[in-house]
């Protein structure tokens, strides 16, 4: 039991580290690889959640996660990257240094939030809820603060990963519901398709906000 807890904790801490790496990196290729690593860690996490031998549900879930997030999406994304010929995220709305300095503060808030919750059943580590929140926040942050459409897709993947961290903790009692979450990946598939077909490179400006700005003063 304590060995399992240690293992779960290790995986979860690795997830935190991948988040930091994503926030601090401007090279898109590396970001994709780190996201892939995070996906594989999640797959491992799903199996570790059950004490004793994992059920067939959990093994399938974990295999699906590793295939999709660890292999298929990174492959597609890297191919798109090559086609579009972009390598760096330029001039993000929030700089890399600032992102990195802010993120531990966010982590502290998330740990406090997680400690407020009493998660029942089968959760083998008290870090599950905080890290879920932290990963979701990182994903959201990447979506709103970066300009390349591709980084936004990565942000969405990270957001989804955060949801899976939480989902894995209740996968033992609600396996069907957690499996439905795989459908979220349909969005990622559509995003990648959209970028590839329509060559969407950067995010779009919102015309209305512009209009409101012009009426200042």
């Amino acid at each position, binding site marked *: 039991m304590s060995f399992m807890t240690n293992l779960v904790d290790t995986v979860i801490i690795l997830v935190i580290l991948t988040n930091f790496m994503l926030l601090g990196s401007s090279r898109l290729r590396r970001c994709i690889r780190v996201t892939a690593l995070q996906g594989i860690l999640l797959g491992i996490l799903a199996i570790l959640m059950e004490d004793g031998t994992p059920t067939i549900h959990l093994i399938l879930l974990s295999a699906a996660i590793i295939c999709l997030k660890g292999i298929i999406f990174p492959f597609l994304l890297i191919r798109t990257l090559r086609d579009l010929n972009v390598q760096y995220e330029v001039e993000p709305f929030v700089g890399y240094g600032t992102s990195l300095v802010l993120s531990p503060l966010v982590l502290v808030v998330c740990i406090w939030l997680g400690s407020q919750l*009493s998660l029942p*059943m089968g959760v083998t580590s008290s870090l599950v809820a905080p890290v879920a929140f932290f990963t979701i926040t990182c994903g959201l942050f990447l979506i709103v603060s970066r300009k390349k459409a591709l980084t936004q897709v990565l942000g969405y993947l990270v957001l989804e990963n955060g949801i899976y961290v*939480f989902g894995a903790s209740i996968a033992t009692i609600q396996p069907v519901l957690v499996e439905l979450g795989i459908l979220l990946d*349909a969005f990622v598939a559509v995003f990648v398709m959209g970028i590839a077909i329509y060559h969407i490179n950067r995010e779009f400006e919102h015309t209305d906000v512009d209009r409101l700005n012009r009426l200042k003063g």
Partner: protein
Amino acid sequence: MNPGILLWIILLLPVVGSGICQILRSPKNVMNFVCFVMALIGILEVVTAGVVFSRNTIFSCGEWFYMDALSAYHLIVMALVFCMSSLYGMRYFDKEIHEGIFTLKLAKRYGTLWFASLAAMTLILVSNNLGMMWVGMETTTLVTAFLICTRASKASIEGMWKYLIVCSVGIAFAFMGTLFIAAATYKFQGSISGNGVFWTQLQMHAGLLDPKLAQIGFLFIFVGYGTKAGLSPMHTWLPDAHSQAPSPVSAVFSGFMLNAALYCIMRYTSLIKLVPGNENLSRDLFLIFGTFSIVVAAAFILLQHDLKRLLAYHSVEHLGIIAIGMGMGSLGIFAALFHTLNHSICKSLGFFCAGRLGQIYGSYDMRGMTGALRLSPLWGGGLLGSLLALIGIAPFALFMSELLIVKAAIATNVIWVLVVFLLGSCIIFAAALKHVISVVYGTPPVLDFKPRRSSIVDTGIVVFSLGVLLVLGLWMPKSLHEILCRAANIIEGIDVATIVCVK
């Protein structure tokens, strides 16, 4: 006959129709097919709703499919909006088909996606399992995204992309909320089945849900589905998507998709009200987001130049009004549900007229659109009628439902909401009136072609919608009153009928 079979039929028939669209031979055929099959499905949906009203509830497929008065009422609204939009769509693409822009390939894709989105929205309404309901909403988002760029242009791709990015995050949040609600069931795990979270089972045991987890879950649900419902500040996708989509699609977006998302929140509202310590949570959220939506909509309507965007911001406003109604309990919920129907009919009509006028003028910029009434009496008149109804002119039904919400606000003593609501409505009233007068009256520009004549079907749609709005404003049938009461009872959990006396 087992009534449960009806749920299967209304769910599977659109799927079949979606497939058949792929083997049709001309764009015209596809549009006619969509229209006729939709009429058939519409009739079946109304029959299903009727059976639900007479039996109270229908179950099917074990506990997975379920309908009660609340979902049946929404089913009727959906049938109405989809039938009207399909009928309108039959003629809407005529010009493009004639010019060869709307090719067979596009038409097939349009028909397939049209029925697929109908099937997905039906799934939302018939699911008892909250996970399946989420799947329905997720599928709706994916399918309708491609309807936005039926005709691919730079602007429509932008609209689609924003819609996908913003709504995908919303849907992800809704899933997180569903997980939290599932986690909150641990105290009565033994007494429910492990196959997911069934609404009927949760409602029976709602008092035992873990308060903290349920609270966070509901927050996620509200923000998540609220994004899809276009509540401000999560509404940013809405004006872009609505203005770029072809008009029949915009009508379905505004007329039913937003309501479907709100319907999901309603289901959770009925649960969260029973959880100890969270009795007021849904009320506060509805009131805050509702008033904020009205304020934001008022600001943008004031500065709007694009006719379809104007209508889109009206949707934000009216969803806000429905939300504050939901936050006011019994009478408010009754009024909110009534407003749902009125708004759906009225806004669909608005988009129909805007679409055809846009085709005549070649753009939706209201600064260039003048004299619509002389150029096309039917669509100009329809636009005038629908906008007057939208801003709450007296004999129309929207005025009645808004009046009921004002009554509810006074009864529940939420004066700040009432003040914001009335102020916002006044600004919108003046701004929208200014816009519509400049579009409808004045001298029309000289056109180098003769606008095509409106057919009997077009006239029928306009007269029917305005007629229904007028009749409902003056007189509410007893049966509708009872249906609304029963639907409101499901959300409120107490007998609303004793509190509501309209006349």
